[in-house]
């Protein structure tokens, strides 16, 4: 790693975001920023609003009020694909697999979007015709995609899975693939929703390695994780939510010692 200290650059800004589902306020007036090349931990007991917050950032859920922007341009109001094209991608609490594709092909789906400037298919129709007629240009691109996919799978430590059908993966393998897929689009912001849950120690190590190397390459990683020990160990800063509100923000040490945070977690266990 080069030791050049780069100044903190704000990339993602969440300003006054609230989400209301009928009578439930899932996210209440949450404001924070994320910087390039950092891991921002997002903590909070079950039902605190973490997933809902990720849904808002990734364009899945419209906030009731507030807005999210990336490098100054507004994300709120855009569709999921457009948010992705601007460099924000995510994984899901329950991995989403592309059944019918192999592991390598799943990664190729992500790479194709990146290849065409963020979204796939690109400009209407031409791509369909190129694929249908199997033009030599398209075939060369396919070969390149395949090589890139293999490189990404190797980087994620799952090269051995490349040819397997996604239907055959175990839960932990699904998580690793979903992570590799998300990294394949070269995101600026990566939202990881409980990426360590139900993983074995080797898999946890693989995910943590991927997170660190994403950070090293400048990605802002937002990490929701119930394994508090791992989260505090890998995060540079932490935001804590409880009942939709942000109750703390700061370094992992400061947050871990914060009485409000301890209360929220203990209160949760007593409930």
């Amino acid at each position, binding site marked *: 790693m080069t030791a050049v200290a780069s100044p903190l650059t704000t990339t993602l800004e969440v300003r006054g975001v609230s989400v209301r589902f009928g009578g439930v306020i899932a996210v209440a007036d949450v404001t924070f920023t994320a910087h390039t090349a950092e891991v921002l931990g997002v903590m909070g007991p079950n039902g605190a609003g973490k997933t809902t917050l990720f849904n808002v950032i990734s364009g899945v859920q419209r906030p009731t009020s507030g807005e999210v922007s990336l490098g100054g341009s507004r994300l709120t109001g855009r569709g999921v694909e457009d948010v*992705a094209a601007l460099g924000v991608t995510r994984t899901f609490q329950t991995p*989403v697999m592309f059944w*019918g594709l192999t592991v390598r092909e799943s990664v190729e789906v992500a790479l*194709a979007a990146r290849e065409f400037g963020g*979204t796939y*298919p690109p400009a209407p129709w031409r791509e369909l015709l190129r694929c*249908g007629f199997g033009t030599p240009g398209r075939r060369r691109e396919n070969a390149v995609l395949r090589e890139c996919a293999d490189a990404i799978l190797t980087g994620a430590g799952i090269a051995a899975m490349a040819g397997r059908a996604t239907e055959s993966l175990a839960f932990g393998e699904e998580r690793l693939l979903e992570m590799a897929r998300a990294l394949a689009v070269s995101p600026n912001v990566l939202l990881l929703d409980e990426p360590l849950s139900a993983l074995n120690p080797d898999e946890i190590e693989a995910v943590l390695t991927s997170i660190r190397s994403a950070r090293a390459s400048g990605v802002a990683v937002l990490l929701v994780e119930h394994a508090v020990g791992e989260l505090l160990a890998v995060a540079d800063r932490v935001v804590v939510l409880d009942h939709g509100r942000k109750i703390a923000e700061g370094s992992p040490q400061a947050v871990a010692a914060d009485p409000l945070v301890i209360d929220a977690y203990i209160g949760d266990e007593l409930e």
Partner: protein
Amino acid sequence: MYGRFGLVLLALVAVLVWFLPSYYTGLLTQIGLYALVTIGLNMFMGYAGQVSLGQAAFVGIGAYTSAALAVKGHVTPWLGLIAGALVAALVAYVLSFIALRLRENLLALATLALGIVINVVFNEWEFIGGSSGFKDIPGFALGAFTFDQRAYAILAWALVALGIWFAGNVVRSSFGRALIAISAGELGAQTLGVESERLKRQTFVLSAVYAGVAGAVYASSFSYIDPSSFSFLLSVNFVLMSVIGGIRSLWGAVIGAAVVVALGQVLQNVVPLVLPSARGDFQQFFLGVILIAMLILLPRGITSRLREARA
């Protein structure tokens, strides 16, 4: 591989037509045209994971466009075929802006409504013959040679070969992989930048092109069309062919078309023996029963069982 498969079938048909009685040659043409429609439908249903209960409307649009141009404007059916495909594509394109926003079961309803509306248009629009349709539609010709039954069978299967080659390339390309991704996990694919609505739209339009081409050939080969040729029941039959062959299979489209046409023939001959008072509707009833049985016994189609047997 699909390309070679298509050529083998084409060669087979080109030989068979010299030995088959003309009635069976006509059936071969019908199977080919249905297979073409079903290949398109399978891309939309099997790969993109959508539903269409309105493919007959696109077949009808292709048929009527080509027939109207030929009868009213003396335009050669070769151009009519291209025009039919384009008009079907245009209608699908416009409809897609409404329909593809809808959830799956609503999309089924929207395409069903399209089929009904288009049929009303065929019935009511006097310029295109109203309820009596078009008669004496000019046939295809190459130079001085006007197409006969054999030539239509060969044309239909040449189009199947072309259609399955193109579709085979699509489904094994980035485009096809993106289709499979959205059908399995739409949101997951979207968060990677996959434009699911655009993908579905283009696939829907492509399926309409396949149907429109089949319709144009149908019109000239039968030389007669009326609105009842493109009813809702035909759309249901396409879904039946698709499901019987296996919706995520291009070979399945051909098998499904052949099985449904063959079953129709069998029912036509057997039902009157068992139920002398039964009319044409009973065939549809039995096809429906067979569909339900298929869904229970072979939910992923005949080709899925073949694949399992090979594996």
